[in-house]
């Protein structure tokens, strides 16, 4: 099979984070500081990534700014020709650090906001972070970075989507991503408490659509639909192992960040192997390339060229077999799993917050 050049690398440089969002996509078993790749490891990975064809780099976490070497990493990324985004909570983005990042050639900063309502935002983050986020936003604007805001939508905040759009506009964002929660990791544990109703989802989509036109040319609005309420699954990032790769804090390299939950795959580490070998030859990247792995109805479905059978991580998480169709698809009997989850979520539930210090319980 002729292999694509990957375009995007997400570098999750740490799992450490001062916030405790219950929808965090990090795995439940997080890597501790002493297990993280070093500065030299990361710069080598960025050089190898560019040689492999990667153009876009996301420096992410956890909260990437807990590492003191983000500036050095950004400078190296720029030197090898990557376009770099820092994906941050805003906590720790002080003016001196932002200035150093600007000098290093970092181009784009994405700050997550939990809500437009400050008290609700603090509740979800498990700490008071709003003032730091607002001041970070002002610094990002002032220093002339490309500036995105990301808000993860869930049952308790989705009704305020209109306010969130106004908040992002007033903070001067160039882009606003309104992303409905995807249920992996912590979010899957908290699915019942997070899932909005169909009516909430539809109302929010209408508001976002109307706002797109209003803000056109100043702020780009991207609304990511929640797949549980769709007829067909989301396309898997252009296909497994086709455009995207992600390196976890401990060096394990995955086709996407949901893949960590597929416990039947073994992910090779950049500590042991060159990135090119992992991309071209590692079993995990080969696993779901093309369509030979597919089961029915995907194998003979014309939509397989559009959605690639949906999300492998979701198929695994919900059915125990990553070669199944994504249960979101209404063409498979597995869809009853999703319908039942939507029903179960109707009603009151409480979150479990994300704490690095606690061993996760599974109940």
């Amino acid at each position, binding site marked *: 099979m002729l292999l694509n050049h990957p375009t995007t690398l997400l570098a999750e440089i740490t799992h450490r984070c001062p916030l405790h969002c219950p929808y965090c996509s990090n795995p439940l078993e997080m890597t501790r500081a002493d297990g993280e790749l070093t500065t030299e490891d990361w710069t080598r990975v960025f050089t190898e990534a560019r040689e492999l064809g990667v*153009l876009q780099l996301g420096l992410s976490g956890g909260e990437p700014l807990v590492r003191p070497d983000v500036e050095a990493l950004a400078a190296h990324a720029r030197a090898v020709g990557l376009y770099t985004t820092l994906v941050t909570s805003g906590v720790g983005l002080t003016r001196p650090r932002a200035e150093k990042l600007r000098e290093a050639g970092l181009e784009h900063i994405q700050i997550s906001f939990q809500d437009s309502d400050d008290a609700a935002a603090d509740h979800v983050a498990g700490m008071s972070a709003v003032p730091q986020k607002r001041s970070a936003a002002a610094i990002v604007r002032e220093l002339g970075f490309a500036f995105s805001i990301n808000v993860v939508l869930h049952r308790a905040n989705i009704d305020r989507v209109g306010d969130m759009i106004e908040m992002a506009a007033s903070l001067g964002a160039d882009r606003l991503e309104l992303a409905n929660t995807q249920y992996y990791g912590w979010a899957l544990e908290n699915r019942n408490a997070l899932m909005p109703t169909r009516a909430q989802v539809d109302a929010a989509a209408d508001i976002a659509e109307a706002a797109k036109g209003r803000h056109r040319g100043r702020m780009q609005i991207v609304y990511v639909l929640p797949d549980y309420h769709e007829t067909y699954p989301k396309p898997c990032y252009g296909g497994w192992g086709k455009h995207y790769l992600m390196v976890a804090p401990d060096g394990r390299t995955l086709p996407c960040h949901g893949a960590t939950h597929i416990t039947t795959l073994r992910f090779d580490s950049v500590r042991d192997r060159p990135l090119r070998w992992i991309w071209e030859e590692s079993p995990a990247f080969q696993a779901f390339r093309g369509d030979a792995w597919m089961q029915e109805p995907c194998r003979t479905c014309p939509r397989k060229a559009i959605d690639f059978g949906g999300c492998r991580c979701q198929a695994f998480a919900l059915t125990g077999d990553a070669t199944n169709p994504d249960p979101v698809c209404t063409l498979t009997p597995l869809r009853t799993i999703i319908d039942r989850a939507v029903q179960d979520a109707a009603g009151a539930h409480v979150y479990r917050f994300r704490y690095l210090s606690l061993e996760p319980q599974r109940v």
Partner: protein
Amino acid sequence: MTLTATSVPVLWRLARLEFDPVRKQRVLLYPEGVVLLNDTGAAILDLCDGRRSIGDVATILGERYHREVVDDVIEYLSRLADQELIRVA
């Protein structure tokens, strides 16, 4: 946004044109996105400096390729304008 021959197109200020030595191809980089450009596309974008109109761009390229290209230029830029990668100066 509808583009015409008199529109003056300019690249989004947050997007930049680069040459990728790995693909040996021109690319457009911007927040959360990449466009891999073919030679004609890159030639069009190189001329979009925020001063030339689409008509001006088409005249220059028309001379280079010895044919009428204004409709092709409008179509190409409109696709990028839909994604807000091209704006009107």
